[in-house]
């Protein structure tokens, strides 16, 4: 049995009046897991908890078998997070890539150059001076170029056009093709989530309401969007 890359047990996390509860949940190597739910359901909170950005009130999160808050260096060397709401360092893109590359022993300079070229990033521009779509591509580049074992994507299609979304799909596919890495994808673009994810975690108002295989949950005769609509119906 393969060790899970992420193991959540009895997670309880309060932020003001909001409370997220995830009983038991795992992410294993080689899979893409979709996290879906309405606005404010707790998707971003869950991803940030996995990344070790938020302290838990109860329960545990283990990433690569480690506590991401107690051992951030070991976890972050193998974990990539992409979220448009989180800023990047505001320097020229070329300089940013050069600086960041020094922090990861696994940094793949050739892959970074290839992604910069594919994404059409102007290395002379400052990170704060690029469009939302280009900002998302930059975040993807920074998260992919060190070949992370776990990739957390929070609304990764924000600002991306059709070409950008196709590039994102390709990137996700390449990230898991070795079978050693996994992707956790949170998005409101349910078509993309359904197409990419083998498993789903459905959250509403901070609680897990469904989880399991995408085919099993959605079925053959409807889309994820239709399934979500039917689940939300009283």
């Amino acid at each position, binding site marked *: 049995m393969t060790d899970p890359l992420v193991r959540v047990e009895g997670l309880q996390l309060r932020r003001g009046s909001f409370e997220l509860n995830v009983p038991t949940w795992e992410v294993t190597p080689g899979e893409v897991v979709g996290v879906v739910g309405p606005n404010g359901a707790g998707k971003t909170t869950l991803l940030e908890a996995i*990344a070790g*950005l938020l302290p838990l009130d109860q329960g545990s999160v283990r990433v690569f078998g480690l506590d991401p808050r107690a051992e*951030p*260096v*070991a*976890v*972050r*060397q193998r*974990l*990539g*997070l*992409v*979220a448009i*709401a*989180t*800023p*990047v*360092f*505001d*320097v020229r893109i070329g*300089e940013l890539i*050069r*600086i*960041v*590359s*020094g*922090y*990861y*022993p*696994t*940094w793949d*300079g050739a892959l970074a150059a290839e992604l910069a070229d594919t994404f059409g990033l102007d290395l002379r521009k400052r990170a704060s001076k690029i469009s939302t779509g280009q900002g998302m591509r930059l*975040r993807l580049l*920074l*998260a992919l170029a060190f070949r992370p074992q776990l990739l957390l994507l929070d609304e990764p299609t924000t600002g991306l056009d059709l070409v950008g979304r196709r590039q994102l799909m390709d990137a996700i596919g390449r990230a898991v093709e070795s079978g050693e890495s996994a992707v956790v994808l949170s998005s409101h673009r349910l078509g993309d989530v359904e197409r990419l994810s083998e498993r789903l975690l459905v959250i509403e108002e901070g609680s897990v309401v469904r989880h399991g295989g995408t085919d099993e949950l959605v079925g053959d005769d409807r889309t994820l969007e239709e399934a979500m609509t039917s689940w939300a119906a009283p």
Partner: protein
Amino acid sequence: MIGAVGRHAGVTAIWTLRRTSALLLAASPIVVVGVMSQSELPGAAFACLCSLAAVLTAAVGSLNEPARGIFSQPSLTRVLPLLPVRDDARDTVTALTAWILSLGVAVVAWQVAALVDGFAPASWEWGWGVQHLTVPTLLLAAGLQLPGWAAGVRASSVSSAGRYAVLLLAAAATIGCAGIASTACTRTSAGSFALASASWPPR
């Protein structure tokens, strides 16, 4: 692999160098403290100089570029990519290092001023130095941490109005800290001017 290790070492060296230069910049107001505590300048002028130095440091911090030193570092936990560094430890070490360095520079400046002033080494009283420099230096060092905090907030996704409010608050707090430091220094130094029979600069 060798290339990656070399790159890592190179980047670490550059960052260390830049942080050191930023620390020296941070320590510069303390040089002013050290030198001015030997002078007979009025407290107001002293406070102005301290405030100016602190505000200049805040301006450097507001540039918000990681390569420009510690004061321009937003909190690494809230900026992408999530760099594999231990943020809290770095902040603590940085703050502690800044304080120790600042204190060291202040003591050296005080002694150099005393030397130029014609003090004999025998008249140096370390207790005097600790008593008169620790409190103001600590307060100044605390004030100098604020720009870093402000830069961190500036980089986060708060509204423009919020950013300006935080920067204004940080600037006011920095000036306040410098003011308190100068007042503390001036008051505690009041009795000590008699010790410094010669004034700075030497007549």
